[in-house]
């Protein structure tokens, strides 16, 4: 398939494999964090670890949108769906993430709640138009990639005068999360987590550009290479990170130039800025409260804000005892370090969020990498 096969060629992979092996310093370790779940997925799906020398290891980051959503937000979504008998729409794998009481959206759907999986915000608008007598709420999650379509839907709903449509906004921001990891005691003080460099997000960066990473590359002296999601992108980016580390550089480099520019997609950014604004703080599963790390709907669009329409947003549920998702999301622990991994927590019966999405580190370990151990 054109534009896909070119980035999955084995002979080019072998060339890059040889180059990486030639250039790594055998005397040191290279710990590279891939922030995005899409990269985690690619590493396992294509078996990229097999092509790396033994002293390069991947540290899986918190960039899986369903994994970082605190369970209280899911409890809230379930709560309003049942209380107001409304239609709740959301993206695929969120349906399986357990809330605090281990209920999932899939479970309440089986019990009779009207929960619908959608592929785009346009589907939600369609459902709202077809059901004018019912409230339709879009349970919006995701990083900067999925935020512009939510903003577009809100603007469209306003233009059409759709009164029964609202958004439960849970969009979060990548740079704030990376900075939070770099500020964590494990990295700064205790030194239990050593990160030598970052694979920068691909789709997210197509929206926000490469510039937002420049601050912390400089401030924390860590190299960042924006990498595409195809396996050759990751190989090339690994080589670029190794070179930066060897040369003591800490710059933002862009491997994914066919999509990402320094400034990003200004039209999408403008759309989001018109409809949404920063939250002072937001709870992330694994990272806790992270200042200025998420977006909420602006007062001028308040009529489409489900948090205001249904008085939402304060449920806090504690993490599940024994579940290491918080540490796994920060890269401090590996899935196999968790006592629940593969015993009580499996993809068929996920307890922690990292086991739910195929982008989650635990699910990827289980589905693609278990045979290595």
């Amino acid at each position, binding site marked *: 398939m054109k534009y896909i096969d070119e980035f*999955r060629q*084995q002979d080019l992979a072998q060339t890059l494999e040889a180059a990486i092996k030639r250039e790594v310093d055998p005397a040191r370790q290279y710990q590279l964090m891939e922030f995005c779940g899409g990269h985690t997925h690619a590493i396992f799906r294509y078996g990229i670890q097999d092509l790396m020398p033994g002293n390069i290891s991947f540290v899986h980051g918190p960039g899986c949108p369903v994994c970082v959503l605190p369970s209280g937000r899911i409890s809230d979504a379930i709560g309003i769906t049942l209380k107001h008998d409304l239609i709740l729409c959301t993206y*695929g794998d969120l349906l399986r993430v357990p809330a605090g009481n281990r209920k999932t959206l899939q479970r309440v759907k089986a019990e009779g709640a009207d929960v619908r*999986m959608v592929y785009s915000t346009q589907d939600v608008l369609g459902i709202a138009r077809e059901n004018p007598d019912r409230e339709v709420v879009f349970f919006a999650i995701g990083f900067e990639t999925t935020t512009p379509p939510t903003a577009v839907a809100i603007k469209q709903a306003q233009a059409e005068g759709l009164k029964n449509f609202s958004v439960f906004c849970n969009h979060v921001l990548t740079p704030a999360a990376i900075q939070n990891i770099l500020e964590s005691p494990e990295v700064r003080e205790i030194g239990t987590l050593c990160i030598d460099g970052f694979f920068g997000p691909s*789709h997210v960066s197509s929206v926000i550009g490469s510039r937002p990473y420049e601050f912390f590359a400089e401030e924390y002296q860590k190299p960042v290479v924006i990498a595409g999601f195809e396996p050759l992108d990751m190989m090339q980016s690994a080589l670029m990170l190794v070179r930066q580390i060897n040369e003591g550089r800490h710059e933002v480099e862009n491997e994914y130039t066919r999509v990402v520019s320094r400034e990003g997609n200004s039209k999408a950014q403008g759309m989001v800025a018109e409809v949404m604004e920063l939250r002072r703080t937001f709870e992330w599963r694994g990272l806790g409260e992270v200042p200025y790390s998420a977006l909420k709907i602006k007062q001028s669009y308040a009529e489409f804000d489900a948090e205001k329409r249904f008085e939402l947003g304060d449920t806090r549920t504690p993490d599940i005892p024994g579940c290491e998702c918080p540490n796994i999301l920060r890269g401090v622990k590996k899935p196999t370090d968790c006592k629940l991994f593969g015993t009580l927590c499996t993809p068929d019966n996920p307890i922690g969020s990292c086991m739910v*999405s195929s982008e989650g580190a635990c699910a990827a370990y289980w589905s693609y990498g278990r045979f290595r151990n």
Partner: protein
Amino acid sequence: MKQRFPQRLNIRDGLVEMGHGSGGRTMAQLINELFFKHLDNELLGQGNDQAAFDVVGGRMVMSTDGHVISPLFFPGGDIGSLSVHGTINDVAMSGAQPLSLAAGFILEEGFPLVDLERIVISMAEAASLAGVPVSTGDTKVVERGNGDGVFITTTGIGMVPPGINISGHLAQPGDAILISGTLGDHGVAIMSSRENLEFETRIMSDSAALHGLVSDMVRSVPAIHCLRDPTRGGLATTLNELASQSGVGMSIYEDSIPFNDEVVAACELLGLDPLYIANEGKLVCICPSGDAQRLLEVMRAHPLGRQAAEIGRVIDDPLGFVTMETRFGGSRMVDWLAGEQLPRIC
């Protein structure tokens, strides 16, 4: 037995009504003028609640399969032909020649008779083409809202030729793993026609009866160890089932698995893995490696096996893992499907 009714069944404007499941004259008319008319054969025409037929001694197999599919009509088939193919294939995967089918219909009140007739005609055509008659059946009607138009359960019986012993627990380390053609066509055809997910594709369901292909295969290589059709859950699920039944591992090569480009493209777009997508006209065959080449030639000579390929080997692994050498040069695990395959968000 032809019953006469005062007025003909109005198929063009008629709907399934509760009376069509009442056991009375209305039901008799539906059965006579719709089911018997199209599925016509000697046994069915006798009008009994069962079909009786003579068999010669030997090993008999029986299989049953409930068919629930949305949408009922899809590119390359419909629930009618699917219900014939699905059960014929389940019978044939033992190496058997299917003899006869029974069909149970659960109809939802309000379902248009014109659509029901389309489905029954399609069943009749599939059964006739396969040479496997629908010899007995049953009809029930549920109230509107308690069904999804039409559910069809078919049961099939067949006879295994002497000297054939095929079962999911017989795979052995060193065996070759063969596949009869491209994967994922049925699942993608269904997805492309679902209401909330319309996209344009020329992909048609591969729904087909495989007993002719199987017959050629067992005649040429009676020592086949396992046959299975990779339906729901796709190739990945089928290989995991066989690995766990036989207590072996499997190693497959991504490069050798045949796919239609459009299936790969649709899966890329939707964030799905084609190894987990359903097929309705393909089979997986596990045989001694020395027989693989001869079997591939026989398969490729049959219209339903033209793109047959060897895709891997059975290996010794008490944990029963299925692993794949990726086209990229790495390796990964190919696990069971967990829950249903949901698209990734990012």
